[in-house]
């Protein structure tokens, strides 16, 4: 197996790098989009709350593969937008994950005591000021461990790039497997690479939870 790794080192490395890149980019965008919708889910305006709920429910109940394929195949065929496999996969992953992050952040916002909002408002802050200076900082501290879990899920889900020629770890491992016919050793190597990313993160999150962040 080591010889397989050595012979295909650059292939695996490219995949490893693309997986990391896709995960980080998706994390960034899904955090922003997700938090945005989470806040939208808690505003007093019923209409906007509904819009947010619709978005979240749609993307939580459709498979990631379907979302990704829409960006990869459907959009380019009907719009002038042309995306590479990596781009389509990353966008699909970002949007899919944003729905889950929205739920996580929303529960964080709602678990901040009602008294906080009341106290802030009674001190003269507007709704948005209260959100920005009082509620949200507390909410984010609460949701760090669950968000960490979402990040681990995101890294695993980045394997969706294998379906759209995204040159990630799974795709590259697949290429090595089809070319060398050594399917099991290739996939074991892919697994090890993923564990390098996910296991430490997972254990760190467990540690944070124990510490009672």
């Amino acid at each position, binding site marked *: 197996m080591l010889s397989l790794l050595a012979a295909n080192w650059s292939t695996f490395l490219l995949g490893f790098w693309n997986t990391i890149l896709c995960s980080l980019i998706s994390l960034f965008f899904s955090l922003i989009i997700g938090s945005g919708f989470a806040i939208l889910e808690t505003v007093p305006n019923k209409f906007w709350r509904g819009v947010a709920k619709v978005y979240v429910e749609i993307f939580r109940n459709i498979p990631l593969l379907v979302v990704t394929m829409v960006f*990869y*195949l459907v959009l*380019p*065929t009907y719009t002038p937008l*042309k995306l*590479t*496999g990596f781009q389509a996969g990353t966008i699909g992953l970002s949007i899919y994950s944003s729905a889950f992050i929205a739920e996580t952040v929303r529960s964080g916002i709602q678990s901040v005591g009602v008294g906080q909002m009341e106290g802030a408002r009674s001190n003269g802050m507007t709704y948005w000021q209260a959100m920005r200076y009082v509620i949200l900082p507390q909410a984010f501290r609460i949701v760090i461990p669950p968000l960490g879990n979402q990040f681990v899920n995101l890294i695993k889900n980045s394997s969706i790039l294998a*379906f759209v*020629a995204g040159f990630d770890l799974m*795709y590259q491992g*697949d*290429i090595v497997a*089809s*070319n060398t*016919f050594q*399917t099991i050793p290739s996939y074991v190597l892919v697994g090890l690479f993923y564990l390098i990313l996910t296991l430490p993160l997972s254990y760190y999150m467990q540690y944070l939870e124990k510490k009672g962040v």
Partner: protein
Amino acid sequence: MARKLRELTAFMAVLLLSLVFTACSHSQSSSTYDRVKQTKTITWGMRADTRLFSMMDVDSGKATGFEVDLARAITKQILGPKGKMKIEYISEKSRIMDLKIGNVDAVMATMTNTPDRRKIINFSDTYFMAGETLIVPKKSKLNSIKDFNNSKYSIAAVKGSTADSDVHKYAPKARVIFYDDYGSCYNALKAGKANAMVSDNAVLAGLISNDKDKFKMLPDTFTVEPYGIGIKKGEDKFTAEVNQALKVLRKNGTYARLMKKWFNGVPGFNIKASSRLKASE
């Protein structure tokens, strides 16, 4: 109570394991030939996405095509009129593994007989002589594989096919992007993600048959692709049976009839050239 729980867990584990084992048979220790004769069934690994060769018909839920008919004819030839044919749908990626592990007895899936593959599986005699070429958008000015020898061009190919090394030979600078199946390659070409798609002319002809106004096939095939039936390595008795069946079908006109049935309507298709047994004929 603790002991009861432990017993329960152990029981569940045993139950699951036995479910797994009874649900699937152990790997075959008997030869393919014996198994086929015993069960009076040949399990063929075939495709569901290749027009004219083996394409899934949505209405019936079964594949139809030249390969399907040929497989049926071979089955009846080897096992007699009562012989049964079973189709397992496989992907390009898994077809060789499916043979090795015994999921199928034989693979007829537009698979080219190459020296590399011969090292790990048996091949029957050639049942179709294709050649690799490219399909490009109708307006494309590129005329042959050599025109693609530029790193700005990307060519879609199927994972596990012979395309990569062939493209590499004639257009080393071109980028090859791999997809899981013909459909994905074709969709990529249509979406503009690749400038061309490389595959066997027979396969490509089927793909563009509905989009003749959008794509064209480059006329020159730059390789010769003899399709053979894949059989597990070492199963020489079964391979001989299949070859014998093929010979008989060629001799008694069934082969020619099937070729005509499926390829007569394809414009520009040279049936005689595709029926060759050897490339040198």
